[in-house]
Every structure is written in C-alpha cells, then in structure tokens.
C-alpha cells in the first residue's frame, strides 16, 4: 500500500485524533470516591465557636459555612450563605439577604434566626469564651444583629469597619440544635469530641460520619448541600474525606509514599526525598508560594518600670542600644537570609521584608526598605553610631564603655527558629556583639513577653493573614502583642503614633484603594524603624496524588480549600 499523502484533510483527522487523546479524560467531573488526608493531631472539639486552634478548624471548615466566603484564588469575598448584601451610605448598616432553600444537614431549614442566634446568643454571650467575639467587637462596642424577615438579617455597626465582609465568613451554627445548651449555660462544654457525629449539624458540603480518637475521622457527602457547580452538578463530588491522625511526620511521609494517603504538606528539607518519586507514586509537588505569617527578631524597647520592684524592666544600658535605630539597622544588615533559606529550607523559602506576606495579595507592599546582608556595612553603621571595640578585647563597646552584651532567646520546641537564631547569633558575634543564646520553653517565653518583660532579644514568629487590621494587637501601641513595648498608655515614639493613626483610619476606610495607601505606608514605616527585623518564610509545598481534578492549591487556604469542587478523574 502506498503511503497516504499528507493532505490537509489527513492532517486534520490526525490532529483531531491527537486532540482526542491529549484532552484529559477528566473533562467532565464525576461523582464518588474518597480522599485520604493526614492530620498531625486530633481535633479538640467540634464546636467552632469555642475552638481555640487549627486542628479543630480543619474538621469544622468542612461542616460549617459563613454568610460570605473568601475565594482563595482571587482573594475576593464571595457570597456563601448570603446571596447578596447591601451597605448603607454611612457604612454602618449592612443588610444580608440569605440564600433561600438552604437546609441544615438534618433537614431543618436555615433561616435568619440561626444568624441572629450565632451572634447574639453565642458570640456576644458573656458566659461563652470565644475568640470570635474579638473580631466582632470594635472599641468595646458590639454589633447590633437583627432579623428583618426569615431570609434577611441586618447588622448595625458602631463605626465603619472595613474588614467586615471578610469577617462575615464566621461559621453560622444551628439554633434548633444548640438553643437548649445555651439556655442551660452548657454551651462551653457542648459539641465536644464525645458528641455522636449525627448531632453535629452544619450547612457545609460534608458532614461528620465517624470519629475514632487518635486514629481517624471521616466526613461524608452532605446530600442536602445547596451549591451547584458551573455545569449545574449538585456538589460535592467526593463521597468521603478520611483524615488519618498521624503525629509523626516521617510516618506520614511513609504512608504517602506507600499510597495510603493522597496528600502531604512538605517543607523544603523533605523535597529531595519526595520529588524523585513523583512519577512512580503518581503525584505532583506544587509550590504555592510563601507561607502566611512572619518570622522575625525583636529587641525589647520597653522603657517601663516594674511597679513591684521599682526597677526598669530592661537594664537602661541595654535599653539605650535597643532604642537606637542605628543599632537595629546594623542588625538588619547582619541577617543572612540566603544562608537561612539554603540551610533550613533547601532553597524553598522567601526572604521576608514586610509584615504582610507576598501571598497576601492586594495589601502586600513590595516597595519597602530592604536590608541586604552586608557585615561591612553593618560594622560601619555601628562604628558611626559609636559602637566600636575600645579596649581591644574583640567585643564592641558603646560610647559609655559598656560592652554590647545581651541575651538572645527563642522557644526550644521550634527547631527551625533555634537554627535561625544560631545563624543570626553567629553573624552578630562577628560584628563584635557578645550574644548569649538561651533556648527557652514556649510557656516561659510567653510569660516574659507578656507579663515580666525581662528579655533582651527574641526570635519569634506570628500567624498572619490577608487582612492587615487583624494584626492590630501587634501594631497598635496599646496592643498586648506590641512586643517591643506592649500596652503603652500613649505612643512612645512618633512613628508608633503614626502607625496607631493608620490602624484607626484603615479600619474605617471602606474604599479598598485608599486603604491600600494607608497600609502601604504602615509597611514602609515598619521597614524603616525595624521594631521587628524580619527573616525568612517557608514555601508552602504540597505533594498531591494525580487522581484529582479541579485542584487549585493556594498558600492562603491550602490545597483543598475548594474541596466541594474536587473530584476523582475516572
């Protein structure tokens, strides 16, 4: 047979064939199947209001929803239990129109009563200890929450509150299940781990099916879930989410490589162990960008006096150095971020220059003052400010002849921080500072930061997010986490005063662009004044089995924020 000539028609057929095979077979999502994940610890309860930490939210985020939700890809607020909303001219009154037809997973209808109950009877209840209350309290004033009709709720705010829509992702809990516990003042101890799974009622895409302490919890598809996909499919696609509780990371990794588990979060150090198995294990490693949160060195700038002993919290000699901006600038030039990323993160890290993470989207300001690693420059700054070795003993002295010597701590449980501290210490020593490293127990460290204030310098990290206002406790000079000088009556410096102003203005500015200008300025001030001297952030690396469709991993919300849309390729 003669070879077929390469006519356009043949080419077209060939191309069509090629397309047919190249188009992924998972073009149309299908139902069914399970995803198996690991969790490093048990949830502490199923009660989203009293929950104090993340391992609880890992479960409850699948079961409960708020009026709004954050699109983890675009970082924009989107409707969830509320279909739409309006805000009054003055920005004080918000009206939410609830989505009709939404049902709790036990079949009861979801109404405005549930929203009012969640706020007035749970969050604002004086007998209930909940961190949610802090988000919905401005200057000691709470919001007024009223039912207009069955599907309309009105919030009246004491002041304008820019993060309001984001905060409204607050989970709504069912009144019909919990009203009794609240009336009997038992809510604090309700929905603990001993509750039968069927009692935990939410509106989310999944519901709790079983929990075996220390081993696993299983969530199953909520057939009553309201959300549809773009194609009109009733969500979610998956039948089951299984969380195995595996405390040891090495064991979790073995389970992942073995195929028992579908996902594992990695740090840079583990990358070379996992990456080569990608093809064999049929998975992909995603790099979602820098972690949220911060990692920094902080010097104690507290000039207060201990009321009990009438002595200053910090030795006045040391205080003088720590308050000296040149001293802090020199330290900033001695932070070897490249070395930290290389040694601790295998190169999978990001230098941190600003309080907002690069992943934070709109509020991240890349144009802040940056400090390159340059020991000569650091030495020169110190020498110009009068810190030189005056007696030839190898350590530098300040103009009053005091050797620059201070304690440098971090919490012993966090290996990475201990290593960061030791790298910094090494560089500070070569600047001639006598740095005594103390690794402290976490609780001791917190006590020092919070109540005794007897510390010199600390390496620490905080959690962060995309809403700058939620860092107010750190940045406002009255804040308890304003670590370098907490709970000031009046701002000690002009720049702290300006930051106070920015945070007060920023929270009342509803125009996002104007807000950005304010928070950009705040980030620049911080980078110039260096109350916190930033170090490095980890990359979020996710290794995920290839059998899933619709994956959109992000640093903000992890690999499975859109769990309801994820399906298994058939």
């Amino acid at each position, binding site marked *: 047979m003669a070879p077929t000539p390469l006519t356009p028609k043949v080419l077209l057929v060939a191309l069509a064939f090629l397309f047919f095979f190249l188009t992924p077979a998972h073009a149309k999502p299908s139902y069914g199947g399970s995803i198996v994940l690991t969790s490093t610890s048990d949830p502490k309860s199923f009660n989203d209001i009293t929950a104090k930490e993340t391992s609880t939210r890992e479960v409850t985020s699948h079961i409960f929803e708020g009026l709004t939700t954050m699109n983890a890809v675009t970082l924009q607020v989107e409707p969830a239990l509320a279909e739409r909303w309006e805000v009054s001219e003055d920005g004080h009154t918000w009206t939410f129109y609830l989505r009709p037809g939404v049902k709790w997973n036990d079949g009861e209808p979801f109404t405005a009563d549930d929203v009012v109950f969640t706020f007035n009877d749970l969050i604002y209840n004086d007998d209930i*200890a909940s961190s949610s209350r802090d988000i919905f309290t401005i200057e000691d004033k709470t919001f007024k929450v009223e039912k207009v009709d069955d599907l309309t709720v009105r919030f009246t705010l004491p002041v304008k509150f820019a993060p309001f829509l984001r905060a409204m992702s607050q989970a709504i809990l069912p009144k019909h299940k919990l009203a009794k516990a609240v009336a009997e003042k038992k809510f604090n101890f309700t929905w603990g*781990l001993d509750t039968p799974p069927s009692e935990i009622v939410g509106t989310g895409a999944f519901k709790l099916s079983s929990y075996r302490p*220390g081993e696993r919890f299983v969530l199953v598809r909520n057939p009553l879930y309201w959300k549809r996909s773009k194609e009109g499919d009733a969500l979610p696609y998956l039948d089951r989410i299984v969380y195995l509780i595996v405390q*040891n990371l090495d064991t979790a990794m073995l389970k992942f*490589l073995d195929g028992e588990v579908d996902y594992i979060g990695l740090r840079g150090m583990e990358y070379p162990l996992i990456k080569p198995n990608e093809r064999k294990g049929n998975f992909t490693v995603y790099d979602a960008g820098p972690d949220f949160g911060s990692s920094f060195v902080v010097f104690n700038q507290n000039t207060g006096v201990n009321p009990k002993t009438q002595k200053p919290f910090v030795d006045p000699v040391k205080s003088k150095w720590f308050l000296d901006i040149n001293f802090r600038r020199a330290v900033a030039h001695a932070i070897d971020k490249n070395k930290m990323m290389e040694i601790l993160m295998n190169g999978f890290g990001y230098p941190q220059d600003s309080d907002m993470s690069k992943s934070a989207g709109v509020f991240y300001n890349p144009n802040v003052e940056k400090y390159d690693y340059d020991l000569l420059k650091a030495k020169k700054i110190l020498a110009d400010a009068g810190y030189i070795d005056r007696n030839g003993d190898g350590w530098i002295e300040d103009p009053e002849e005091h050797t620059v010597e201070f304690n440098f701590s971090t919490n012993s449980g966090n290996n990475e921080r201990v290593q960061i501290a030791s790298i910094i210490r090494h560089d500070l020593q070569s600047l001639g500072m006598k740095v005594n490293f103390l690794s402290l127990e976490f609780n001791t460290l917190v006590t020092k930061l919070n109540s005794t204030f007897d510390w010199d310098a600390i390496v620490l990290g905080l959690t962060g997010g995309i809403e700058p206002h939620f860092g107010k406790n750190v940045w406002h000079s009255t804040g308890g986490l304003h670590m370098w000088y907490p709970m000031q009556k009046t701002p000690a410096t002009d720049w702290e005063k300006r930051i106070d102003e920015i945070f007060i203005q920023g929270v009342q500015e509803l125009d996002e662009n104007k807000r950005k200008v304010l928070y950009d300025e705040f980030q620049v001030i911080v980078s110039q004044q260096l109350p916190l001297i930033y170090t490095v952030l980890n990359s979020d690396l996710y290794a995920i089995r290839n059998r899933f469709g619709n994956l959109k991993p992000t640093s903000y919300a992890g690999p499975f924020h859109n769990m309801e849309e994820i399906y298994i390729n058939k």
Partner: protein
Amino acid sequence: MLRYILRRLLTILPILLVMSLLTFILMQKTSGSFYDTLKLNPQISPETIERYIKLYQLDKPLLVQYFSWLTNLFHFEFGYSFFYNIPVADVIGGRLWNTFVLSLASLILTWGVAIPLGIYAALHRNKITDRLIQFTSYIALASPTFFVAMLLLYFASQSGILPLGGMHSANYDGMNIIEKFFDVLRHVAIPATALSISSIGALQRIMRGNMLEVLGQQYILTARAKGLPENRVIYSHALRNAINPLVTILGYEFAGLLSGAALLEIICSWPGLGALMLTAVQSKDIYLVMASFLLSGFLLIIGNLLADVLLARLDPRIRYEK
C-alpha cells in the same frame, strides 16, 4: 495474708492524696499556663483570655481550686480538660484501653520470648548458640525503641505485609469478633515488637544469670546425685527458684503498663495515652495531667502489691505476718 493486703490497700489513699496535691502545685506554680498560645494570637484579646480563666476557675486561690477538684473526685468526676472542653474521663477513656492493649501485647511478647531464651542460653552456656544469643541481646539492648520502630515501619512499607501504624483498619466496625481480633493483632505487631526488643535483651540476660546461679547451688547437685531426671531437676527445682527475682520486675512492669510508650505511640500513630499526656503536660491541661498521674500512681502501688503477694506465694522464705 488478707490482713496484709487490706493494710496495704488502705495506704493507697493518703499516698494518692499527697501525690495529687504535689502534682497540682507543680502544674500551677511552674511558669506558663494553657492560655499562653492564645496570648500569642493577634486576634485574641485579653478580655477573651480573662473569660477562659474565669470559665476554668483559674482565678480562684490555689487551695480552693484543689479542694473543689477533690470534692468532685469523690463523685468520680475528674474535672474538665481545658483543651477538649469535655470531662477528663471522656478524653482518657478509650485511649486507656488502647495503651493497655499495646503494653499487654508487648509484655506477653517480652516474657514469652525472654524467659525460654534465657533458660536455653543458661543450659547451653558458652556454646555457640549461647554466644549468638548474648551478642544479639547486646545489640537489642543498645537499639533505641523509636529507631527500631522506624526500621520496622520502613520494612512494612516495602513489603506491604503489615499496616503502617494505627490500631484499626478502616472497615473495622464491619468485622466480626475474630476478624477484629486479628485486625488489632496485625496492627499491634510492629509497635509491640519495637517496644519489646530491648526488654527481651535485658530480661533474657537476667534470666540466664539467675538460672546459672541456681544451677550451681548444692541442692541441684543433690537432686542430680539422687538420680532425678534432668528435666525435673531443671524445671521443677532450678526454674522455680531462678524465676523469683523476676516476679518483682513484673510488678514494676505492671506499673509501666500505661506510661512506657509515649514516643513509640507517636511514631506508630497508636491512639494511646502517651501522646495525649505529653501534649497535656506541655500545654498545662492541669486536670488531664492530674488524672493520668493518679492513674499511673495507682497502678504502681497495685503493681508492687501484686509482686509482693506473688513472691510470698512462690518463695516459702517470705512471710509478711506470723
């Protein structure tokens, strides 16, 4: 004998009372508290932390807190866990059993292997098999439990014979009783082996030493001289005497049933008490810690008592009263 046991049981109460008071003071007076992590959360205000403190009555004087806990204890209420917001007994409940299963499996394995091995080694003293056993015992003694566990897990992952940690298969609830037993057995194999390896080494050496000592005694010579069959000499005369000191060890092992395996439980994802207690101590979940300490203390006392009673039965020289 009965009176002796009763007397010993009566002393338990004051011991536990003092123990609980000491634990309570230690937990309260050392620096830090369970809400320290909350304090470092930018989104949690001091007022909220105040509320938590009030909720758990941590604002009351120390002794008031202790006595209110103690009164509840007489109603068999062990207080609430700060972290789980449910009664301590509910948190500990199932995990207690799981740890017990693991410890028991390892206890049976250790004694079941070490005793015969020790006897065999003693009877074949300085032969090549004995040397081999002693050599392996040294290695076993020197290998850290967590390392052995990691190796075994790696082996399991490569061979696919045994499950990688955990205690039950996913379909456990649908099994019948025999399948359930074998399912747990398969899961317990790795942690129990890891836990036993170094104790087998140690116990085997003790058994061998005791046996050799007894075999050198004159009454063994007498027994042999009067023509008793070797089997009877060894098993009814020598063994009975050689095993006495081990009974004391068994008593202590009983006390360690609930506490010996925290690290291993973490590595093998065994849903036991160990990991729970470790985090409870670190995070200062006071009443959870107190409950577990009381439990361990109780078991230690009971274990010792058990050893003493057993010893009296086994060794005619020991009498506790006239």
